[in-house]
């Protein structure tokens, strides 16, 4: 009797062991090229370390917008992945829908990790903190920098080591630059969404209330901001374009342009002029948006899966891996210790342009609007901006007033 029992136990045990498949964790991500390569490498390494226990599969789900759409659909279908990389301004509906796991649940059970929480850049943690808790970790974050063509500066009699710090100074410098030729422009801009927010904030305006329910965009400050850029275009010293911006930046005909810190590597490799960089100008305020994306966990997954996902999250955002990510891609490290590592510090010394974004992170970087209806509102803002900038005779005040009203309807619709 006992023997049979023992044998049964043994059989069951063997069965249990052979059928104990690794826990599968799916992560959806939204970038290609070197970014996807790095993520896939990190996942592969994690899988090796946790062979038999946890298997992470990283799946490319299109760009930021496409990934957001797919996740929304998955939310409805009850079929979300465990983890996802989601762009800063596109998380509203997930937050409102309670789709994200409050990571504090895992942090509180994990004192070893909890001790490292302070090692994340505070503003990134702030940016991921909501009413519902700490919902995400920084993954690939950036701030915008102003890149300058030092050759053009010198030719125009301007000091490239003393670049403009305010938009008024940009305008003044741009006027000088313009004397170099009809085909040369002082400042180039387009319809990059995070920059449209920055311009408004820097002139003292606001876009949307803290609770995400009220549009605040139509104000003398915002009108002033839009009039400023429109004036530059009208007078021929700024250049605006919906497309072809990158090629203009490479052409050597643009003296100043604002782009992500992530562009440093790309521009260094591709431009044949002396590339300078500085912090993004302010006007009434010095403030820049945090761009890029964070990584989130979906609460609807089974407990075992979430535990496994937590393990991967820790690995992904470890000092070693955030350093690796930053080295490979040019995005900022998520952790201070990674920033302080010798490899990253060497980059800061070899090329001080890389340090600018960290300076902005400490001084002036803020979370972008993130609310549920915001992606739709943002598309409307972009459209209105394009209208005003492509036709410098358009009345910015009237366009903004109208935009404010229409956007308010969208908010009202969403919340009531």
């Amino acid at each position: 009797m006992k023997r049979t029992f023992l044998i049964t136990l043994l059989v069951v045990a063997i069965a249990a062991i052979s059928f104990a498949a690794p826990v599968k964790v799916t992560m959806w991500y939204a970038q290609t090229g070197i970014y996807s390569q790095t993520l896939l490498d990190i996942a592969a390494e994690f899988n090796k370390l946790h062979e038999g226990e946890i298997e992470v599969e990283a799946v490319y789900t299109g760009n930021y917008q496409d990934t957001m759409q797919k996740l929304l659909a998955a939310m409805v279908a009850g079929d979300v992945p465990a983890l996802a990389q989601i762009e800063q301004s596109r998380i509203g509906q997930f937050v409102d829908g309670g789709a994200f796991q409050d990571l504090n649940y895992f942090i509180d059970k994990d004192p070893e990790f909890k001790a490292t929480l302070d090692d994340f850049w505070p503003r990134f943690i702030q940016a991921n903190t909501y009413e519902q808790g700490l919902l995400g970790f920084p993954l690939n974050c950036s701030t915008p920098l102003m890149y300058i063509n030092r050759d053009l500066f010198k030719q125009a009699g301007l000091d490239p080591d003393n670049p403009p710090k305010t938009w008024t100074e940009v305008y003044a410098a741009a006027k000088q630059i313009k004397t170099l030729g009809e085909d040369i422009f002082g400042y180039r801009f387009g319809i990059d969404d995070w920059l449209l927010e920055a311009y408004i904030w820097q002139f003292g305006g606001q876009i949307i209330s803290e609770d995400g329910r009220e549009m605040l965009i139509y104000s003398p400050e915002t009108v002033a901001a839009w009039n400023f850029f429109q004036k530059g275009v009208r007078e021929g010293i700024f250049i605006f374009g919906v497309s072809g911006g990158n090629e203009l930046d490479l052409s050597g005909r643009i003296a100043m342009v604002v782009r992500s810190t992530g562009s440093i590597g790309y521009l260094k490799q591709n431009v044949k002029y002396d590339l300078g960089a500085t912090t993004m100008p302010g006007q009434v305020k010095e403030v820049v948006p945090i761009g890029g994306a964070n990584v989130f966990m979906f609460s609807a997954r089974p407990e075992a899966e979430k535990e496994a996902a937590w393990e991967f999250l820790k690995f992904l955002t470890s000092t070693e891996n955030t350093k690796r990510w930053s080295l490979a891609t040019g995005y900022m490290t998520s952790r201070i210790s990674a920033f302080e590592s010798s490899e990253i510090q060497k980059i800061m010394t070899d090329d001080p342009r890389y340090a600018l974004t960290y300076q902005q992170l400490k001084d002036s970087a803020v979370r972008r609007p993130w609310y549920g209806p915001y992606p739709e509102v943002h598309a409307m803002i972009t459209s209105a901006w394009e209208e005003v900038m492509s036709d410098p005779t358009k009345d910015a005040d009237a366009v903004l007033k109208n935009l404010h009203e229409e956007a308010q309807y969208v908010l009202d619709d969403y919340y009531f």
Partner: protein
Amino acid sequence: MKKLLVLLLITAGVFSFGQVYFGNIHAHTSYSDGQGTPEEAFEHARDSGVVDIQAITDHDHDLNYPLPDGSWKLDRIIEMAEKYTVEGKFIAISGFEWTLTSRGHITIYNTSEWIDRSTTDLYDIYQWIVERKATAQFCHPGKKYGDFFDFEYFPEVDLYINTIEVGNGAGANSNNVIKDEYFERYQRALNRGWHVGASANQDNHHKQWATVNDARTAFVIDELTTEKVYEALKTRNIYATEDRNAFISFSTEGAKMGDILYDIPEATLKVEYSDPGERIRRAYIYSNNGIMELAVSGDEWTIEIDVENPLSYNWYFVKIDQIDSNEIVSSPIWFQSSTNKYLLNAKTIDSRPVKGLPFDVSFDLINSLREDQVISVKVRSGENIVFSKDYDISAMTCLEITETFDTEYEDLAFFVDDELAFRVNVDFVSFTAHLDTSHENYFVSELKPLTKIFVDLGGEVKPVIGELTEKTTFEGQVLILPLPDADTFMKDFMAISEEQIDFIVDYVEKGGLLIIVLAKKEITHPSIESYKLQFEKLPWVVELENGGRSVSGTSTRNLEIEDGGGVVILSWDEATGNSVIDEGTMGYIEFRLGLR
């Protein structure tokens, strides 16, 4: 019996209209920013039935990253090209695209190594191509990606870059592949001296190599071999077509499309077209001496045109617009002087020089001999010699020359060793007026009535954008200075600097005409003081009043500077056409401009 008949018909067709093969020689795979592999690409193109020749030209910098198995991408592309090439059936070509936006992109074929834009600039890649005697192509030329420094010419490099894309694009609509901008740049390249033929390629980035639309490059060769394909590229025996199978032939006695002939003062050009079922809408011969429309129609025709070759350097190519808006562009035939001395691209630096003042002229001198030569340039207008100089030009060199001419003749003929090389018609103006817009006074549309007056008087009005500089001021005979807009929200920029005041005063004292337009609205901002200072520094007793709206201390608003120029003060209403400028003032303006 039937079989024989069919065979005869096909053969007859071939003999009447020649043989042509089609190629797509600019395309990408996942080895750079495209999709799929070179193997897939060559296979797809081969099996498509619409091309006989396919090249893979992935981006230079992406070739720097090895494949997962450690091998180099270019080696693999070359391997696949060899695997898929079957002489007589399908020619697969390896290549890469040198990608330096701002200079331009160049596809380079059949080299065993590559180099990328991070270590090379334009002159470096030119040297790289020459050293390897590689076959290369100018891609999608234009403002966006670059036009090779406006096609700065190098006779040695010209031997290796033999084609230029007039068509590039992977949109589904074949009509959009040949683009106006590329077509215009093609002519620019020819006018700078490049001997390039016209190609059309899909530049595929999303698979569907050769099949995404109908545009391809046609190779006019009688045998489909690798050797003949490269020969066609080198000798430019190709044409660009948006149509799937249009056939054209362009020839002259002793030469086919892409060839260069020497010392032929007159020639007969022959154009043939065949595309059963597809009629043409229009056909043209473009040349550096003008455009001729051909009196042809239908879906099959031949025409012969007699042409004169008036210059020491002449080129002609054919352009055909089909009824369905597909376009076909041929490579040129050149008729050149055998001296290998050419003068091209002559122009006035200022597009509208002022008559009576010296003006700068630039032109390119080309020595395409492998020996130094002296080029003797004479510029004539009728019998008059306007300019004459000899230049020492090294072997295989193009020099961009700038000279100052002092003539009022409009019709200038440039001769090289007494052969007519180029003609320029100078577009003189009587004077240049600058309209300041750099002091919060951007009133270009409001002041049209005023600027029109100057244009009607035979002058050119140029807005000053950015900053008003001494150079700009002195470059013109008139400076229009409107007072700033009191309502501007950028009040810091309203004031005129003391430096600017000083050179404006200097300008007037040296003979310039200053037109001051009084303020649109009373200026209460402190910047008005700088305009008052301007008035103080001018050698008169006039003062600015009412926030810039009026003046005092003078009974006339036209002021003559002794031994110098003059100043005219206009009210806002007068300058914007809301009230009439009196005859006396108009007379004074004309007098100052030497028009009376």
